[in-house]
Structure formats: structure tokens, C-alpha cells
């Protein structure tokens, strides 16, 4: 059934761009300032270039596996064991990121306006969206993504352009921020900001051709690089370095500054709709892939029966951190620093092994003949 679904390029690019860019609405701009000071935007560009290069390598390695996802390729590389190992690593990664992101989105909503509401109650609304999305399937999620991605982008740019009176270009100096070392050497791990590219390795069968795979990869990294760079740059331009470092949700703080005359002064709640929508898209898409990867890994016929168990699991894990700071640190310290290993290194390793095995079987076959 799944193989019958085919996405257009617009749909897949929108989905991946949303998945990569949605962190803007969380703590991403602050994270970049923490890592590279006023050179945050340079760090994003550097990470984007690295991500492009690594993706070029991956797409080259991918060429013989047209229409196969990373789990299929894991199966080709190491049979059932290979498939299960690859699938399980992806599964753990997805469960971790969905749980942490769910908590972060819910905590952000509490910070914005639901100060006295229990976190579990807020999370339940996000969970409802996730379950609905996963239940209806990836086809409807990407379609909705294709419709909403431009709306989210317009909302984001409206915020950033709306605070233009606060721009101060002198704040960009020193351009290299906390130093070349921090940007170009330690900054390598920040390639993780493009870790959502791993979803591309899962949607490959829906894209059918290698050309679509490549176009989607490059375009989504490119678009999100623009968005991420822009958000980091505006964070530096609008706030001083120390202030930019302290903002828990920099884009929300920007939205609070938007002032459209005397009558419309506090419209950040409207912008909140845009980023709640992006959160729903992100969470439901990644949550769908939890069920999808589980189904593929263990060769189940249906994925829908595992939606509720995984929803319970994700909900429970998300409530484990005692507070928002712990949840955010979990994401920054562990996820953002090391996830590139799963997003970029694991696919390369799996692809190399699969290619080697195919080559070996071909030469073996030729010798036998």
C-alpha cells in the first residue's frame, strides 16, 4: 500500500524544509549564539555547506538504490539483522527527538500564556494532532505541509521584518564571534541542525526517482539554511549579544517587539498560531515515521495498531525531565551534538556496506558462472 503513495517535489521539499526549520521557533537562534557568539549566522552557513557536501556524498552512494529507504538498504547490507539494527537506531533517535520536542513545544506554550496549566494537559493537545496526523498517514501530512509551509514562512518573515526598527548592524561585530575555532572546528557538530535530512532517507520510496531524491535534499537544505541563517542574523541584530544569549524563545521575543501602530501592539499570539502549526507538522511527521520505521523494521503489515502504544510511550518519556531547562539541555547537549552521527554517518556506513555486498555478490556470481 505504502509504495503506491508518491509525493511531488514541492510536497517533499516543503515537508523537509519545515522539519529542518521548525527549530527556529524553539531555542535554535540562542543555541547558535551560545556556540559562536556574534558569528552565529556564519556558523549556520558553515554547517549548511558541510551538510550539502555530506549529502552530495550520500546521494552519490544512494544512486544504485533508487526507490529504497535506509531500512531496505540496511536489509541489503546485513540481511534481517542489518535491517533490524538500522531500524532500531532510527527508531530510538526518532522517539527521543519527538519526546523532547513535544515537551519543548508544550513548555513554550506554558511560558507564553498557559502559565498555570499542567504540562500534561498542554501536551495532550499536541499529542492529539500527532495521532491524527499519523493515523491519516504521511500523504495527508505532506499535503498539509505543502499548503502550510508558505504560510509559516510568511509568518516568520513578517516577524523578522516587523522588528526592523530594532536592527542595529553594529551588533554584528565581531563578525567571527567567539572565534574561528568555535565556528569552523567545534562548529562541525552543529551540522546536526540539518539532522532532519534523515527523514529524506525514509521517504525515498515515495519520491521514486534518484533525481527527485537529490533535488529534494539540496532544495530543502538550501531553503532551511536561508531560514536558519536569517533567524540567527536577526537574533544578533535585534538583541545585544548578552540578551541574545538569554532568550529562551528568541523568535517569540521578536514577535513581542512587533508594533503595528497604536492599535496592534501585542500580536504575538497570532504569530503563535504559525509556530504551533509548524510544531504540529514537525511532531506528526516525525511521529508517523516512528510507527512507519517500526512497521518496516519488523515487517508488520499495518502501522496503525502501533500508533497508540507509541503515543503513550512518547507522552511518558516527554514527562520524564523535571523541568524545561532539563528538557532543553537534553536536546542541546546530547541530541544537537551527536545526532549527526545517525543522520549522516550511519547512512554513509550502511550505504558503503550495502554497495560492497552487492559488488561482492556480483563478482561472486560472475566467478561461479
Amino acid at each position, binding site marked *: 500500500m505504502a509504495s503506491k503513495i508518491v509525493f*511531488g517535489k514541492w510536497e517533499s521539499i516543503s515537508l523537509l524544509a519545515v522539519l529542518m526549520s521548525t527549530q527556529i521557533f524553539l531555542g535554535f537562534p540562542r543555541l547558535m549564539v551560545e556556540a559562536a557568539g556574534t558569528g552565529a549566522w556564519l556558523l549556520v552557513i558553515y554547517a549548511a555547506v558541510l551538510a550539502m557536501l555530506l549529502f552530495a556524498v550520500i546521494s552519490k552512494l544512494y544512486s544504485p538504490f533508487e526507490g529504497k529507504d535506509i531500512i531496505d538498504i540496511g536489509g541489503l547490507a546485513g540481511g534481517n539483522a542489518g535491517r533490524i539494527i538500522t531500524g532500531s537506531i532510527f527508531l530510538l533517535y526518532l522517539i527521543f527527538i519527538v519526546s523532547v520536542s513535544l515537551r519543548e513545544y508544550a513548555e513554550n506554550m506554558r511560558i507564553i500564556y498557559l502559565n498555570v496549566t499542567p504540562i500534561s494537559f498542554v501536551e495532550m493537545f*499536541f499529542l492529539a*494532532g500527532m495521532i*491524527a496526523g499519523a493515523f491519516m498517514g504521511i500523504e495527508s501530512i*505532506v499535503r*498539509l505541509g505543502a*499548503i502550510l509551509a508558505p504560510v509559516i514562512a510568511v509568518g516568520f518573515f513578517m516577524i523578522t521584518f516587523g522588528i526592523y526598527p530594532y536592527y542595529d548592524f553594529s551588533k554584528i561585530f565581531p563578525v567571527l564571534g567567539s572565534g574561528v575555532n568555535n565556528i569552523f572546528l567545534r562548529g562541525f557538530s552543529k551540522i546536526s541542525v540539518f539532522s532532519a535530512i534523515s527523514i529524506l532517507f525514509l521517504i525515498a520510496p515515495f519520491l521514486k526517482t534518484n533525481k527527485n531524491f537529490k533535488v529534494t535534499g539540496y532544495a530543502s537544505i538550501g531553503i532551511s539554511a536561508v531560514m536558519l541563517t536569517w533567524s540567527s542574523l536577526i537574533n544578533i541584530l535585534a538583541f545585544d549579544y548578552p540578551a541574545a544569549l538569554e532568550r529562551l524563545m528568541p523568535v517569540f521575543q521578536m514577535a513581542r517587539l512587533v508594533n503595528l501602530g497604536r492599535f496592534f*501592539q501585542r500580536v504575538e499570539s497570532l504569530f*503563535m498560531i504559525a509556530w504551533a502549526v509548524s510544531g504540529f507538522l514537525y511532531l506528526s511527521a516525525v511521529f508517523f515515521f516512528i510507527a512507519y520505521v517500526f512497521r518496516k523494521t519488523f515487517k508488520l503489515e499495518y502501522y*496503525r495498531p502501533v500508533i497508540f502504544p507509541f503515543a503513550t510511550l512518547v507522552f511518558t518519556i516527554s514527562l520524564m525531565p523535571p523541568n524545561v531547562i532539563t528538557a532543553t539541555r537534553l536536546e542541546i547537549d546530547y541530541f544537537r551534538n551527536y545526532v549527526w552521527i545517525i543522520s549522516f554517518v550511519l547512512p554513509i556506513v550502511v550505504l558503503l556496506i550495502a554497495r560492497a555486498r552487492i559488488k561482492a555478490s556480483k563478482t561472486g556470481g560472475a566467478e561461479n558462472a
Partner: protein
Amino acid sequence: MAGLKDTLKRLLFFREPEKIEKFILKENSTDRKIPETSITNDDLQNKEEQKNREKNETQNKKKNEDLLLKNSGKEKQDAQKNKKKESEDKSEISTSLSDNLEYMKKIYTVPINGDVVIREFKITFKDKTVDAFIIFIDGMTNGTVINTNMLQPLMLLSNLNIKDVSEGLEEHIKNRLVPHNQLKIFRSYKDVIDQINFGGCGLFVDGIDVAYAADAKGWEHRGVERPNTEMVIRGPQEGFTEVLRANTALVRKILKDEDLIVEDIAVGKRSRTPCAILYIKDITNDSLVEEVRKRIKSIRVDYVLDSGELEQYIEESSFLPAPQIFATERPDRVAYMLAQGRVAVIVHGSPFALVMPVTGTDLVHSAEDVYIRFPYATLLRLIRILGIFMALLLPGFYVAITNYHQEMIPTDLIFAISASREKVPFPSVVEILIMEVSFELIREAGIRIPGPIGPTLGIIGALILGQAAVAANIVSPILIIIVAVTGIGSFAVPNFSLAFAFRIMRFAFIFLGAAIGFLGITTGVFVMGIALCAAKSFGVPFMAPFGPRTAGSFANQIIRAPIWKQEKRDDYVNPKDIRRQAKISRGWIKRSPGKEGKGGK
């Protein structure tokens, strides 16, 4: 309780879904097969598994067949009985007139049935007198047509001396005696009865094993009037009626295309309601027509009385709030959509034609959009979309803002709102629910109330809801404005069914806004969006051409392009002919080469 238990079971436990092959609209029927790109280990394994499965199935089949042979005695008897029944239903017409008369009397329960008329008479053929009778339903037939085209020639003209009498009685009646323009010959009772039930006049003659049926429809019906629900200022003012042929003719009159097919089909085991499937054969996708035909033919029901019923039988999902088939009472709208590659179904007895497939944007369009210049149509569409947002979200937004996002409201306005709500004892959500329910009551009562009392209800409603409720401090004045604007917004929705969907969902958004503010509303919008993106209408995604995005369809969706820019038909209906006008459709604008300079001088 049992129903509740079943619902809970269904919600909590997994039930293996039935494997239904869903219809996907492809460019042509050959595309349905997906070519296999490469064979992998998994594929080989799957094939082996399939082979094993097939083996097991054949073994099981053999076992089952043996069992069946043993137990077939009873079944055979049953089957024979059924066959007998069927043969009775479709039994052939006898050569004996008395047998035929007796059969028809039995079928129509004559003489208890007062409106069934049987008239016996004699025909002269080759100097012999042959007995005959006609049968028709009084009130459904035109007496003059029967008298002048059936009885008169048969009773009087048969006495004339016709020179060539070489042909038999069957041909003689058809070729020489009955001058009616639609005379059909049938060999089974069922076919004749179908004709009689739909305003035909049956003729039985002694000595021949056929019966004749002449079309003599003549029932009372409404004439062509202005459409009630889709009024326009610019454009045709004709609406469908309850008569099938009049409706098909109204469409043909507009299209004037020999490629327009009007395919007759009957629905309902007992009612045999005549329906017509309309499409343009060299534009509409064949698989779409086939799917419509298949769905209509598959309906097993006794009676279908209106297109509203048929719509519910053939739509993709019964639970989606939005309609998946477009119902219109405008022949020009049907003609326009047929020309776009859609299929229409007209049901006898219904002034609403069904058009399919339909997308979300089709439901926002009005008939007038096509006839007015593009900037006006664009403005109207944007206003309609604004109306939809108001009808759907405004009450929810009001509740959310007043409860959770007070900082959004400018200071002066918040003073005004709080001052007006000072004496109101209810929370805003209760306040708005009281008003919305009252509004719905007035709307429903307004439709049911007899005509002359209608204005009275308006006055009472306005007085009670407006003046008295505010004076009694039950609701605040600002809420009256919110509810009124919401009501106006819902009236701006051009499609009746879609307006219903928004009316229902509005209440959900009020509760979501009250529960958790904008996050609740966003949850509702997201879930609704996901459901709409998953929905399909006859294989076409409901949110096309935006999700999925299809080529060249943006010219006439939300913003209308100039008419000469609308060069292609909607790509998502996969028409046979995508181009609807030439690249340069305004021939007069094309400059001939070498004359460019002259124009300027």
C-alpha cells in the same frame, strides 16, 4: 448500551481493516499497473510466499468443493427457487391475450389500484379482428397522446384497406398503425412494466408474444424557474426542475455538443428511479466515468427519491464534514463543469444535479464568477474566504482572546469589552453558546415556519436576541456583533452543504478556544486540515491543486486570472484534452509579421 460498547471496542482495540481497493483517478486505465523497477531479495521472498499461499488456497478450494458437493442438495433447491423467482420476474410475454391481461391485473392489483387504467379494444388485421388492450397509469400519462397516437389509429386506421399486408401483425402495428414517435417493442413483462411505471402506455395484442410501450408522459410538474439557492445577478436565470428529460435538455441546450453523452441508468430495486450520467466523451477521463457508473450500479436499495440520497450512497466518506460531491440547481454550472472534464448525475425528481469530482476550491466558487470580469470575481472569492473564516473561527477566537490572550486586545477596546461584560453573570463561553444555539434555532425555525409568519419570527428573534438579551444582562452587546458577523459569514458560503459543515465545526472551535486558547484552535485547524488533505472525491484529492500541488491549475482557484489566461482544464481531473483554449485565444490580438512598425506610426 450495546452500541456504546461496540464504539468503545472499536476505539480501543485494533480491528484488521477490510481490504478495499480505493479508486485512484489515473490519466488512463493502463496506468493502473505499476511497473516493477527492480527485483530484490524481498520481492523474491514475497513471490515464494505468494506461491505457497496460492498452493494452500487451491488445496483449500478442493476441500471446500468436496464439502460443497456434499451439502449442495439444499443449496441447489434454494438456487432453483431463486431462479424460478427471477424467471417469474422476467417471464416472457405470452401469445395469449387473456394470460397477459390476467398477469398485468395481478401485477398492478387491479381493480384495487384506482389509477391503473386498462382499456380493451379490437384491431382489424387482414380481415380478421384481433383483441388487444392498453394499460397506463392515470395522472402520469397524457390522455390526448394516448387517444390520438394509440387508440385512434389502432381502432380506426386498422380498418383501412392497406395494400401491402405481407408483413406480420407485430411489424404491421409498429410500421403501419401506431404513429407514435417513441414506440418500443419488449418481450418481457418487466421491461414493459418499467415503462408503464414511468409514464408509458403498454399495448398488448392477442396472438403475438411481444408488447409495445409508447412514451406518453404527462404528469404535473413545475416549470423551469429561477434557481432558489444559487441566485446570480449576471448570468442565466434558469434552474433545474424535477423532470429528468427537461433537465438533460437544459444542459444540452447550453453545451450543444454531440460529444455530450447522456447515459440513462435506473437506481433502486423498487423505485427504478431514472437517472442520467452526463459527460463529454472526448474530454472526461474514461476511468472517472466508469467509476461513477460502477458506484451507481452497485447501489442495492429499494427506493432512491432524490439526488441527496444518491449523493450519500456514492460519496467517498460519510464522516467527513465537507461534501465530496457538488450539488447544484443551475444547468449552466453543470455545463461549465462538464466542459472542465467532470461527470454529472441527474436524478429524476430532484432539481439538484450532482457533479463529481469536486475539490475544496470548487465549493468556494459561485456560478457568477465565470460571467464577471476577473478582478470582481477575485474580490468576491476573497470575501467569501473571509466569510468562511468568520463563520468557522470568529466565535472560537472571541472566546480564546477574552479568556487567554487579553494582551492582544488594544487597551481602549478591552475597557469597552470589560465594561459591557460587567453585569453579565456567565463566562464568555456560556454566553456565546447561548447566542449561537438561539441563532441556530431561529435559522431552523425560519425555514420551517409558514411563509406569512416568517417576518414575525425575524422580528421576535431580533427583539429577543438583540435588545432584550442585552437589556436583561444575559449577553454583552459585543457578543451580539460577534454572532451576527458569524451568521453573515456563514451566509456568504456559496455551497449549502459546506455552510452546514462550518456551522457544525464552529461549535468544536468554541470548545477548543475555551479549553486552551489559540493552541486549541490550532489543534482543531490542524486536525481538520489533515482530514481534508486525506479526503478524496472520486479519486481526486480534496485539497488539490494546493495539496497535492498540480500543474497549471492556479489560474482559476482562489485568485481568478483573466479569461484568456485560463488556458488549461484542471490537471487533477486528468482530462483527455487538457487545453481548453488556444495559447492566443483572442485571435484579434495576434499581430501579423512585418506589420509591427505600422501600428505605431
